[in-house]
């Protein structure tokens, strides 16, 4: 009798249903011999190694969707893989009853998902939207259309994001500005944060210090290493707080040409004060600001700090020489 293969989504759906419906859990052999999509391929008393591997992959896929698939030891047989029981507790699976979204919240969340149209978070935001729509709330029509987008163009983003999820160490070469050669780093990656339009990696170095790395200064490939120790905590918030402190502390004093392109754009910058031909701006990274100010050419002159001044002058000299 020729069998029509059961589609993958039917097998996964049937597995979720079966595990949601059981209070006490099902053993692996119960699952493989009875659940739609497995049972057709189950060989009673035979070798089911392929099917078992399939089950392992399916569990990962289901957990990736945020489905809390649990394992329970059978009483008196702790650690016995054959009697391990699987289930999905309903309370941990279902959205809590008090989590409801209004039509304007639903609209805002739709926009939030739209931000990630490209890159490794696009699948997640697409699936989050499905779950949101599952609640049946119709989103408010916005007054004006928005099309927000965060790009993930740094090639280092995806491998680092994957390494944080898998909790493994990473190695990469990092080129600090002003240095001739990139140095090798071996770190525990903790969080990825976009701050002022640039992606930063927060990571723990071998000496135990947490450092921030700009993704665009990572050169070459990222290699993943061994499993990394657990580092609980809100690393994103810590990274942002650290960046904010630096931003707050560092101020550049500038002379700007009133009415120029540069004066207009500086006036629209957070925390910048433009007063006639005098301006102050906060900054995090002296080299990034120096690049920007070099672009402004004669419309700006750095008064202080001196390292910024020198960085801008040497950039301008380089540009002049390269085009002379």
């Amino acid at each position, binding site marked *: 009798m020729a069998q029509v293969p059961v589609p993958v989504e039917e097998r996964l*759906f049937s597995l979720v249903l079966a595990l949601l419906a059981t209070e006490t859990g099902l053993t692996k052999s119960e699952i493989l011999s*009875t659940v739609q999509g497995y049972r057709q391929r189950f060989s009673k008393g035979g070798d089911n190694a392929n099917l078992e591997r399939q089950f392992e992959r399916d569990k990962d896929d289901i957990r*990736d969707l945020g489905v809390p698939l649990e394992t329970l030891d059978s009483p008196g047989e702790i650690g016995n893989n054959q009697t391990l029981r699987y289930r999905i507790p309903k309370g941990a699976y279902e959205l809590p009853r008090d989590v409801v979204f209004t039509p304007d919240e639903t609209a805002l969340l739709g926009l*939030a998902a739209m931000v990630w149209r490209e890159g490794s978070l696009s699948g997640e935001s697409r699936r989050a939207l499905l779950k949101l729509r*599952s609640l049946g709330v119709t989103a408010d029509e916005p007054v004006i259309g928005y099309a927000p987008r965060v*790009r993930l163009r740094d090639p280092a983003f995806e491998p680092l994001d994957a390494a944080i999820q898998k909790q493994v160490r990473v190695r990469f070469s990092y080129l600090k500005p002003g240095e001739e050669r990139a140095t090798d780093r071996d770190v525990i990656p903790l969080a990825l944060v976009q701050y002022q339009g640039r992606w930063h990696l927060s990571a723990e170095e071998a000496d135990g210090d947490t450092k921030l790395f700009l993704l665009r200064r990572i050169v070459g490939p990222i290699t993943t290493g061994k499993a990394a120790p657990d580092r609980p905590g809100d690393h994103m918030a810590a990274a942002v707080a650290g960046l904010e402190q630096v931003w707050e502390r560092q101020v550049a004093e500038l002379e700007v040409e009133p009415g120029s392109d540069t004066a207009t754009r500086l006036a629209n910058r957070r925390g910048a004060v433009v007063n006639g031909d005098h301006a102050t701006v906060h900054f995090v990274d002296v080299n990034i600001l120096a690049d920007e100010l070099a*672009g402004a050419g004669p419309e700006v002159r750095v008064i202080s700090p001196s390292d910024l001044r020198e960085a801008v002058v040497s950039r301008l000299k380089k540009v002049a020489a390269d*085009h002379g």
Partner: protein
Amino acid sequence: MANAPKAQPLQARDKLAFLLSLVPYLVDHDRVTVAEAAEHFKVPADQIRDAVNLIAVSGLPGDTAAYQHDDLFDIDWDAFENDDEIVLTNRVAIDDSPRFSAREAAALIAGLQYLSALPENADRASISSLMGKLSRGTSGEPAQVGVEALDTRESVAPTLALIRDSVEKGVQLELDYLSSRGDFERRRVDALRVESIDADWYLRGWCHLREAVRTFRLDRISNAEITDTPIEHRAADVKLPETLFEGSPDDLEVVIDVAPSAMTLLADYIPDGARTDDRGDRIRTTVRVSHYHGLKRLIASMPGVVTVVAPPEARVAVAEWAAEAVARYDA
């Protein structure tokens, strides 16, 4: 072909997420048409029909492990086949919507943070309550990826609020715009849409001065105000070009040598189909710019990694720009 099977789990995961989302929606709606469900989920009607066909034959193995009728979902087949309506008549195992995965919630929370400059997002208390709800609706540890957009919140939020106001009132905006050639002009604009790319925000609107759709960078706008003049063009009536910036026949083509690491930073200026040639540690390619006013700023902001090769006037424009700037420090 070796990679082909790898793509499959992703597709199946999306389909599973859709099934797990559709069931509670159907449970809550006693009778819904395929068209209504498709509209709500923003998917093709056939995707709804396929999913309903699958749900209707799915269920639990049951005591006999035989997937008996009572252990399966069921629908009113007449209504489905004759009227394209979905009515669940039996359901199993699922009542409510699934929780968000940690990364799904992280994507939404990071998106909300990124959008913190929007007027719709201005009420910080309700946003933090919304983020709190997302966190409570999540299974597992929060994922460590996010965006902090304090800078756009503080700098572009007032202009965004004004833009939204003008659309709500149906009136034109008036603003000083610093063009890419460096000229200030007072413009009147019918706002059509707001777009953003990373930290940069843009208004797309009908420009009454140019009598055409134009893109305005928010950080080049100053002295914006709302007028009493009604708008003449509504978003629904204007077809916006796909890309933010349309090339113009007057654009200048400039040949550059660029370090490979800096290519992504210039991607927006490199026209589709431009030639790229390897030249040792540099790549030779072409950028398109509207004016040297913008080119010299762009090139000077990437010292050591980009050099203009041709035309000679472009090299001179960049060299003079940098030399004039150096001279300010010698004075």
